């Protein structure tokens, strides 16, 4: 019975992923977010079968086993774009650091003074970085990984819907600047948007996304200290 449950949870998750991915690739709209849609489908099925989240946990642990190695693999695109890293070193480091820090502090302070419970505050601080970094940072400070993932997706969706328009309104027209901003603020979803604008924007966004993850992890001890 146990292994049957585990198999069932894995199969429904895989099917939801394949279906939602096909839908996204076909229509490409930022609101058709693969994570949101698939998780919604899985939650609906679990609810219909009256299965609590605890029955899903063993399957989850099997499915996320490769997340760590996949994240380490982010070094590969970073290495492939090392010439860009060198060319724009100062701009990249300064602006991504400023962007990551201001995102963490703004989100953390508003959440804290808005009266959110402590574990929710700790989950919203890393909301601007790629999910694997965000969940690990949240976990280090007693946040909730699932909530951290939700805030990351919300930020990414907002960025991919409004980011380009907003940057244009601000008079940010330099392609390097636009790519860095989209990658720093809205991680993978922003990178996808930046790629639609152009190759240069896309590469810079990819770099910014990974660096923002690393810098956010480095800044986290300091920011969490301010918030406590």
């Amino acid at each position, binding site marked *: 019975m146990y292994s049957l449950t585990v198999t069932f949870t894995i199969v429904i998750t895989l099917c939801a*992923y394949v279906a939602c991915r096909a839908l996204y690739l076909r229509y490409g709209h930022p609101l058709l977010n693969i*994570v949101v849609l698939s*998780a919604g489908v*899985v939650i609906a099925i679990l609810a219909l079968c009256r299965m609590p*989240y605890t029955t899903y946990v063993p*399957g*989850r642990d099997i*499915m996320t086993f490769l*997340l*760590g*190695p*996949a*994240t*380490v*693999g982010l*070094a*590969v695109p970073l*290495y492939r774009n090392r010439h860009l890293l060198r060319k*724009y070193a100062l*701009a990249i480091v300064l*602006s*991504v650091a*400023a*962007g*990551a820090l201001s*995102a963490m502090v*703004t*989100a953390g302070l*508003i959440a804290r003074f*808005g*009266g*959110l419970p402590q574990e929710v505050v700790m989950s*919203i601080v890393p*909301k601007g970085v790629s999910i694997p*970094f965000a969940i*690990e*940072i949240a*976990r280090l400070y007693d946040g*909730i990984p*699932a909530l951290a*993932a939700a805030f990351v997706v919300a*930020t990414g969706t907002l960025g991919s819907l409004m*980011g380009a328009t*907003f*940057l*244009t309104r601000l008079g*940010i*027209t*330099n*392609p390097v*600047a636009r790519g*860095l*901003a989209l990658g*720093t*603020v809205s991680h*993978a979803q922003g990178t996808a948007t930046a790629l639609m*604008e152009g190759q240069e924007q896309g590469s810079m966004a990819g770099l*910014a996304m990974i660096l923002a993850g*690393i810098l956010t992890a480095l800044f986290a*001890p300091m920011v969490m200290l301010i918030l406590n």
Partner: protein
Amino acid sequence: MKKVVRLAAQTALLWGIYWVCNRFVQATGLPIPGNVIGVAVLFTLLALGVVKLEHVQEAADFLLKHLVFFFIPIAVGLMDWGPVFYDYGLVLLVAIVASSLIPFWAVGFITQRLHRKEKPCTP
């Protein structure tokens, strides 16, 4: 078949780096996630030429192509957290919007200042 073996071997290498970095973090109590250190370590190994792109890129590209899959099981955990969104929806919305707009401006402004001479683009 050969491709599958190669993918498995490369994934094992990535997993090994991740495992070592995680153990390092646990042993030292460093407040930085193991996966962040893993990215830095693999980048350094590639830069030093200890690890070649051919040793990891197939597995890395495959895993990164399907990276979002791994987030689905984590997001399913939200099923226990519905009330937070009912109770604090507005605060959460304000926090997320404000903490997107400010860094958008900060990153764009700083980079544009440093690279003023370059040609602008028309999005």
